[in-house]
């Protein structure tokens, strides 16, 4: 059925290699990205590395699974790690991160002016791009501290999943772009020769924006920009540095997906985008893959067998004690036993139904459903493999429930590392 079998992603060598310093987990929302990041972090730590996991917006249960009630902007050490390694976990607080940059780069008075500016307050509270920018900023900071030998980053659940690659340069280019300079010093621009066009555009623009947003708003922006003046070059430089850090050897991207059409479509898009940006892709983590210990029994045969057992199709709403399905033709009423009983016609079998019959038919129908799911998953995967046969894949077998503790994360780590088809 499978035409190409993609190479298996070897997770342990990746985690063990001391040259691996950053692992970025990216993928569509709802595919288990954060859980994957946490499981990888735990596994790497228990294999002896000193790891920090930077999560963006973890579910409360996931934080609790690491024994931390609430994650914050500072890495907290996770207890009860086996072995010599260490695991630290943190959650990005974008406002706090932005504030720290301001505090670090401006004198006290200027910093206060910025922090109190209403435009800054909205910007830092998380509008378009800020979260992505701050995630990359935090990654740069963690890397610069050099306290950990492995940093695992989860990426924000963005509007478009690759915003985190674009946002830094967008914010960076805004903050030291033409527009800001125009906002700040209209007179200067107007005075230059050959800038007539810009001048016209500019006055129209400040006029328009003023009208649109209201004078005070624009004034807030201008004050903010003036106060941030000294930091602008810095923003651009840092955005560029982080971007280069992502391209550097030592960084590995993992695209996380589930075997569903949309998630894999997004994963394919990621793979292409990472290649275009020359970002090093380690492979695809495919979560929630289903398997079956009885895969040699096809859905069709299972259904046919269920039918052959003659049990009613689907659970009987009246329960096991309810009326037996009546056959309009061929129903034999057995009077000899003194009680009325409807028997299945001799074809294919004529033994009476027992609880085991009904149960077995149910088991077979359940299995048919599972086999259909398996082939659906296989089809979506084949589509991805056909597009990107070179991408190594690690499959993680589906769990019935969510992860609640370190043991659960460890289990996912084992599944990740075994990488192959679940049984």
């Amino acid at each position, binding site marked *: 059925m499978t035409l190409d079998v993609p190479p298996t992603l070897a997770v342990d060598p990746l985690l063990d290699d001391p040259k691996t310093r950053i692992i970025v987990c990216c993928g569509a929302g709802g595919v288990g990205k954060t859980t994957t990041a946490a499981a990888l972090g735990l596994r790497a730590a228990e294999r002896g590395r000193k790891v920090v996991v930077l999560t963006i917006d973890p579910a409360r*249960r996931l934080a609790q699974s690491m024994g931390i009630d609430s994650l914050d902007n500072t890495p907290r050490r996770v207890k009860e790690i086996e072995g010599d390694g260490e695991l630290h976990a943190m959650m990005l607080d974008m406002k706090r991160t932005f504030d720290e940059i301001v505090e670090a780069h401006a004198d006290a008075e200027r910093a206060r002016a910025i922090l109190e500016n209403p435009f800054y307050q909205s910007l830092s509270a998380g509008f378009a791009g800020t979260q992505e920018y701050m995630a990359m900023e935090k990654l740069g900071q963690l890397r610069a501290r050099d306290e950990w030998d492995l940093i695992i980053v989860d990426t924000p659940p963005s509007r478009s999943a690759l915003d985190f690659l674009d946002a830094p340069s967008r914010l960076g280019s805004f903050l030291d772009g033409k*527009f800001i300079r125009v906002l700040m010093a209209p007179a200067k621009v107007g005075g230059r020769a050959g800038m007539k066009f810009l001048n016209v*555009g500019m006055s129209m623009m400040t006029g328009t924006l003023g009208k649109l947003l209201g004078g005070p708003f624009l004034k807030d922006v201008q004050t903010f920009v003036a106060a941030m003046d000294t930091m602008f070059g810095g923003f651009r430089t840092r955005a560029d540095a982080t971007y280069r850090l992502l391209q550097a050897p030592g960084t590995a991207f993992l695209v996380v997906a589930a075997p569903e059409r949309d998630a894999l479509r997004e994963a394919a898009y990621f793979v292409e985008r990472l290649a275009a940006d020359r970002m090093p892709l380690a492979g695809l983590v495919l979560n929630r893959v289903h398997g079956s210990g*009885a895969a040699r029994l096809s859905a069709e*045969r299972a259904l046919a067998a269920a039918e052959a057992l003659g049990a009613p199709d689907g659970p009987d709403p009246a329960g096991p004690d309810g009326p037996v399905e009546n056959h309009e033709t061929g129903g034999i009423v057995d009077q000899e036993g003194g009680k009325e009983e409807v028997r299945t016609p001799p074809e294919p079998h004529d033994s009476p139904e027992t609880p*085991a019959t009904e149960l077995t038919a149910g088991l077979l129908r359940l299995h048919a459903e599972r086999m259909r799911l398996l082939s*659906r998953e296989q089809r979506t995967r084949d589509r991805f493999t056909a597009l990107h046969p070179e991408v190594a894949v690690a499959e993680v077998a589906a769990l019935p429930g969510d992860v609640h503790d370190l043991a659960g994360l460890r289990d996912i780590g084992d599944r990740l590392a075994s990488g192959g088809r679940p049984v």
Partner: protein
Amino acid sequence: MSRLQVVSGKGGTGKTTVAAALALALATEGKRTLLVEVEGRQGIAQLFETEALPYEERKIAVAPGGGEVYALAIDAELALLDYLQMFYRLGGAGRALRKLGAIDFATTIAPGVRDVLLTGKACEAVRRKDKRGRYAYDYVVMDAPPTGRITRFLNVNDEVAGLAKIGPIHNQAQAVMRVLKSAETSVHLVTLLEEMPVQETLDGIAELRAAGLPVGRILVNMVRPTLLDGPVPDGVKRTEIARELSRAGLGGARKGGLAEQLVEPLLAQAAEYAERIALEQEQRAELAEPGLPVHELEFLSEGIDLAGLYRLATTLRRQGVS
């Protein structure tokens, strides 16, 4: 029934699908609905198997009984240029503004302006009337950002109104907020019967309520049919199951026989299934907590195609959602 129906949900729960099915369901008996997309992902076009939607209202489906579904992918940049043209006749200046980075600034970086433009356009469609004074659309269904961002997205107008204290953006923001916080609007949350989406849904409801936004319904997507009644009873022996499997023509029932080898894996699958069903029951109980109407949509095993959308629309209609 609210005329603006906002559909949100955790990523991966199928909120675009549910929004589309709802738009179809609401387009009964000659009614006309508009399905809007605000995140530039072209999810609606993919769903209805059409080419990418332009920034233009376009008929994409006809509902049973003659209703019509229109679709619009709102683009913040074009909405801003639209807006400049409409109020200031400045459409031509758009290019100059874009060259300067002003449009980019306004639609991606300036706090909240993007969201005001997106929600503003949707509210405009809600209020729009034709020459005879009838509403252009009976309902507007919005495929909104995910649960984690929905409150901020809808409430952003409040924040912007506070930030831009005068001027048209301020007025626009206030006008939009009046619609969003009124009974004209209803915010629905899509979830699955799994722990994380359910938790996020409950958190989302609390947040929306705290912000004074009207929460409508909980829509549980991808609900699978029941295949097995409860857990496997203890009384049934493995040998009996093997015998039944053999009787159904699946090989020998003796130890090592083909039918006998199937027993363990099949029982393992049944145990997993029972665990999942029990978990789903717990999630159902949790979803009952907020006291909102809860609707369940069936899982379409062959994936979502047009026929599937119509099926879901029928389910919604049967449950009295439209």
